[in-house]
């Protein structure tokens, strides 16, 4: 009898909790029509483009919103909401002509007033827009005025010429300077959701579960095919569902099972599970990213440039890349990504492992085996593997590395404060070398994240953003690369290859160096 009571009690409690859970959950809409399902490894940070963001946020919002211009496949800038533009002779005024017939997802027509509203919001005091520092005093140029001579024309006035102005507007991490409708913000001034002009409109965001985007029937594509984040974009499915699946193995299982159609950013250690699986195909592209070791050149031991060079010479970059990325990465000793058009003969040579030279430099520096802390984390997991290999390789040159494993938030905090000797770190894709050098170069006194504060480097970086002449910029980047190798403020190791696994019915997927998944012009075979 007591056993029966206990069983009945357990069942009753479970039933009560089940009913409670059912009542607590809001009833979601039921997906209908063709659905293309993709995976995110973490939830998006917000639905506000370029404001509160990370790479996942950028990727999702690029389907919903568009800017005046967009970055093309080759890294150049092309039209998006602006049909054309002119630059004044003094290089300070950009006059954009908007495309006709564009409507926001709420049906309102796109006008110059909407562009001004969006830009004013990005540049307002207190705004956290990613590109605000770049377009304010101290950046490439400050925006001094946004004028609207007529509903189809926008004039943006800068305080000085800025050849990289359009490239900055098109930056993915700045949300492509998305033009959103003012109803995206509620009467209380709080962001609601993006009302944009993209091929998909905002559907439902269930935190840490999924984001649904719905095909926008009123979308007006540019002529031609898709090109980078611009060109002729089309929604070929009724709905996009970005499902948040943090665990890589679970995501692989979901793809194999058919619960996912697109598995982007496949971790190198999951490649073995997916490669060769029936009904699965792979697509990949080299990324414009940077993975390497950041060095605090004012820190103990590593303040001596001979020790930094010795550490660099102790590493077999090609072998390390092969092991850490499971053969998918590209070894690269330059901060300029190997896929970049500015990656030339000066940047191409890898720093070769030379243990004799490394040991000689170690001896000359008077190093006595003091431990050098190398911070790392498992975000991504390759960081940890790379740190262990660096430790082993450096030991061969008599350098004593102590690997300190942190969680990502702690890792990021140490990066931001500059409180470390050396750390594994990576920067996501930057489509212009000035941006990549820009994350390394700067005044450490005002920005502790910067690792390279030599006046010559700062001057060269400045030169790279004030000229638009390609040959002149190539010379500047070559000079920066040479200085980078001599001063060793960081050690560049590799660029990743972004691998995306797709189920066989998926058509039209194109990986690219900017690392974002683009699901416009992607369809499902046998689906209208």
């Amino acid at each position: 009898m007591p056993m029966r009571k206990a069983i009945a009690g357990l069942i009753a409690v479970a039933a009560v909790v089940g009913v409670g859970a059912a009542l607590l959950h809001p009833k979601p809409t039921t997906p209908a029509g063709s659905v293309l399902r993709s995976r995110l490894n973490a939830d998006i940070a917000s639905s506000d483009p370029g404001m509160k963001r990370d790479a996942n946020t950028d990727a999702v919002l690029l389907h919903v919103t568009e800017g005046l211009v967009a970055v093309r496949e080759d890294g150049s800038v092309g039209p998006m909401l602006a049909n054309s533009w002119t630059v004044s002779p003094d290089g300070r005024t950009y006059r954009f002509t908007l495309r006709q017939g564009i409507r926001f997802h709420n049906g309102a027509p796109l006008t110059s007033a909407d562009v001004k509203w969006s830009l004013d919001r990005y540049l307002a005091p207190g705004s956290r827009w990613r590109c605000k520092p770049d377009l304010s005093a101290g950046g490439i140029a400050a925006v001094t005025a946004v004028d609207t001579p007529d509903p189809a024309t926008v004039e943006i006035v800068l305080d000085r010429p800025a050849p990289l102005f359009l490239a900055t507007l098109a930056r993915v991490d700045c949300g492509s300077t998305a033009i959103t409708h003012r109803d995206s913000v509620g009467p209380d001034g709080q962001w609601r959701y993006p009302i944009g002009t993209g091929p998909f409109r905002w559907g439902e965001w269930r935190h840490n579960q999924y984001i649904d985007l719905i095909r926008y029937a009123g979308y007006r594509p540019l002529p031609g095919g898709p090109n980078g984040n611009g060109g002729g974009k089309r929604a070929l499915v009724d709905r996009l569902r970005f499902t948040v699946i943090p665990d890589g193995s679970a995501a692989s299982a979901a793809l194999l099972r058919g619960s996912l159609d697109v598995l982007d950013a496949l971790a190198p250690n999951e490649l073995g599970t997916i490669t060769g699986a029936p009904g699965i195909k792979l697509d990949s592209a080299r990324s414009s990213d940077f993975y390497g070791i950041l060095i605090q050149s004012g820190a103990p031991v590593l303040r001596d440039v001979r020790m930094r060079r010795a550490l660099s010479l102790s590493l077999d970059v090609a072998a390390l890349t092969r092991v850490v990325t499971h053969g998918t990465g590209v070894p690269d000793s330059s901060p300029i990504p190997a896929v970049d058009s500015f990656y030339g003969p000066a940047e191409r040579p890898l720093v070769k492992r030379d243990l004799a030279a490394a040991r000689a430099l170690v001896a000359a520096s008077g190093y006595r085996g003091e431990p050098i802390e190398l911070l790392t984390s498992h975000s991504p997991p390759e960081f940890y593997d790379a740190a262990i290999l660096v430790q082993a390789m450096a030991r061969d040159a008599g350098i004593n590395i102590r690997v300190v494993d942190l969680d990502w938030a702690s890792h990021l905090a140490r990066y931001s404060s500059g409180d470390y000797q050396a750390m594994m770190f990576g920067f996501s894709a930057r489509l212009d070398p000035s941006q990549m050098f820009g994350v390394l170069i700067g005044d450490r006194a005002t920005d502790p994240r910067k690792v390279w504060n030599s006046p010559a480097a700062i001057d060269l970086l400045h030169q790279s953003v004030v000229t638009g002449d390609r040959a002149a910029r190539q010379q500047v980047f070559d000079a920066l690369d040479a200085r980078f190798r001599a001063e060793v403020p960081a050690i560049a190791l590799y660029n990743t290859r972004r691998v995306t696994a797709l189920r066989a019915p998926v058509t039209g997927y194109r990986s690219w160096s900017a690392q974002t998944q683009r699901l416009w012009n992607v369809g499902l075979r046998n689906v209208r």
Partner: protein
Amino acid sequence: MIAYILRRLLLAIPTLFIVALMVFFLVRLIPGDPAQVMLGEGADPAALAALHAELGLDKPVYVQFATWLGHVFTGDLGTSITTGEPVATLLLTRAGTTGVVVLVSVGLATLIAIVAGTVAAWRRGSGLDLAVMGGASLILAVPSFWLGLLLLLVFGVWLRWLPVVGYIPFSEDPWGAMLFLILPIATLTISESGVLIRMMRSSAIDVLRLDYVTHARAKGLAERTVLARHVFPNAFAPTLTLVGLTLGRLFGGIAVIETVFTLPGLGRLMVTGVLSRDYPVVQGCLLFTAVIYVLVNLAVDLLYPLFDPRVTVE
């Protein structure tokens, strides 16, 4: 009885206050900045400072604590730094999912433990006992995430019987919701049954040695009756304590299962909160878990007299 319950609940208040105090300050001792995590590696220092001010993180810690505690007393656990949602709402929605998984799993594990543990004790030293104990030891040795992935691979990918990721609320599709919960519940049931089987067997062996069991057998009672009426109630009391502790632990601790099966539960909420340094969420989760612990232990204490007449509620 009511006076006893009220006294226990009143005694829980200082416990929960100490938990709140410790949680608040310990969370802030972990290196990392929620504003930095939110804005990423390229965040402008001015934007970081603005976000600190917006989140109230620029105020002294004791001021932040006093403000938070004041709000807790009014039922307001704050707002998630990363999602902007009220923490209380997040906890209630997530606790439902976790609650179903944990209660059903522990319930099933308890049933398995009662049957397997009692039978193994009854047939102590036999091949059956060996098999039960071997199985329990194997379960204890297998990490739950590995078991989850294995079940996912077999029943989700190879056999294609069950979905592998996602979750459908009961309100949308009860049958579909059950399908999504079968694998996580199976994983947790198997994982938790190992220790419960061992405990049940050990207690049952002790009880089977007692004189009143011999007396019951001597009266000519059937073995089934002896086991169900005389052995089970006394042997189950220690297991019940373990069940209570297990329930309390799992309510805040099935993050691994929830991550593997992408369930939107309390554990995953807490892990995400810790990784993003979402202080209000972590504080809310831990406080909620502490409350659950207190309530589950109270419930276990109230259930004790049902199984052991020597225990009375005073």
